[in-house]
């Protein structure tokens, strides 16, 4: 849920990167962190296992600039992708303003993508949200890999509602900021519409 502070003149929003294990959610945040100027970002927190798999969440606070004298701050979270961390994923979706579904383009990961997307829908319903009504974008990550599935196939299976979608390679940064901008813009537009 967005938080508007008229005292400190800030608009705070929460974005969540969702997707199957090892799809590149944390890599998205690392790239954003690396390419953002120090005055626009806070400390990045990763609650990860010793093998660098996300255990609870990653967190990155980001300032995007000012609108009408109000600072816009986005809190970026990732969820742990591994199937058995479902309880944690539910918690992180609480108060979400926008969701990025990071799909792994590799053909072998199609089932994992479908399972994660179904899980996202169900967990949102649990928190009282409807994916079709929430600011939402799809990112097809790992497009650079030779075993990436054709875009038409990914689109048909993972984006039947035709949400805004982006091809990406999070390790090189291709598509990372396009994805972030699209969802952030959609969140602000939705906030205004909700008034």
């Amino acid at each position, binding site marked *: *849920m*967005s*938080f*508007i*502070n*008229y*005292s*400190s003149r800030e*608009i*705070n929003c*929460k974005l969540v990167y969702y997707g199957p294990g090892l799809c590149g959610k944390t890599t998205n945040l690392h790239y954003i962190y690396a390419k953002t100027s120090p005055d626009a970002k*806070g*400390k990045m*927190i990763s*609650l990860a296992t010793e093998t660098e798999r996300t255990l*609870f*969440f990653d*967190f990155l*606070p980001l300032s*995007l*600039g*000012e*609108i*009408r004298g*109000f600072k*816009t701050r986005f*809190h970026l979270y990732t969820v742990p992708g591994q199937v058995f961390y479902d*309880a*944690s994923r*539910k*918690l*992180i979706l*609480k*108060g979400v303003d926008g969701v990025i579904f990071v799909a792994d383009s590799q053909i072998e990961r199609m089932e994992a993508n479908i399972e994660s997307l179904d899980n996202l829908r169900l967990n949102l319903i649990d928190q009282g949200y409807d994916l079709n009504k929430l600011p939402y974008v799809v990112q097809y990550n790992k497009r650079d890999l030779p075993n990436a599935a054709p875009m038409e196939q990914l689109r048909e299976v993972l984006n039947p509602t035709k949400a805004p979608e982006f091809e990406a390679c999070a390790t090189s940064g291709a598509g990372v900021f396009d994805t972030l*901008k699209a969802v*952030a*813009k959609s969140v*602000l*537009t939705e*906030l*205004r519409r*909700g*008034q």
Partner: protein
Amino acid sequence: MSGPDVMYPEEQQAMSLVCARLTRDANAKAVLLIGRDGQPIAEAGDVDELDVTSLSSLTAGNVAATGGISKILREKDFFSQFHEGEKTHIHITLVGGRAILVVLFDERSSLGLVRLRVKKSSDEMVRLFDSVAKKAAAKSEPSILTEITDSDIDNLFND
């Protein structure tokens, strides 16, 4: 219940005063008031060295995880938590189900004193949050969001 979705200067100031008084009365190092979704709302005491944004997010995550445990145990929310450190200790309390009051203290205070002072401050905070909720419901203050135009949003994302 989620955190508050709006905060007005009058209540913000009053909450900051409550935090400052709690810091003094509990002999605490610092006091933070955080929305249940992890947004910092008010603070007092020695916060210059603290990363308040990170602390707020992690505390909210901690409270959410503890809330998950309480659900599994078919218990209501755990109202308070205490983490004992070597030098600094943290007392965390839920305020009216929608905010989190965090007290950082050391050997100059005690858990008993903190608990006692937190109770009084929590009651005041609940009243202030009720006031914010009433104002927001009455829409007595114009919302910044209604003034935002498409070009404002576009300008934010111009490279």
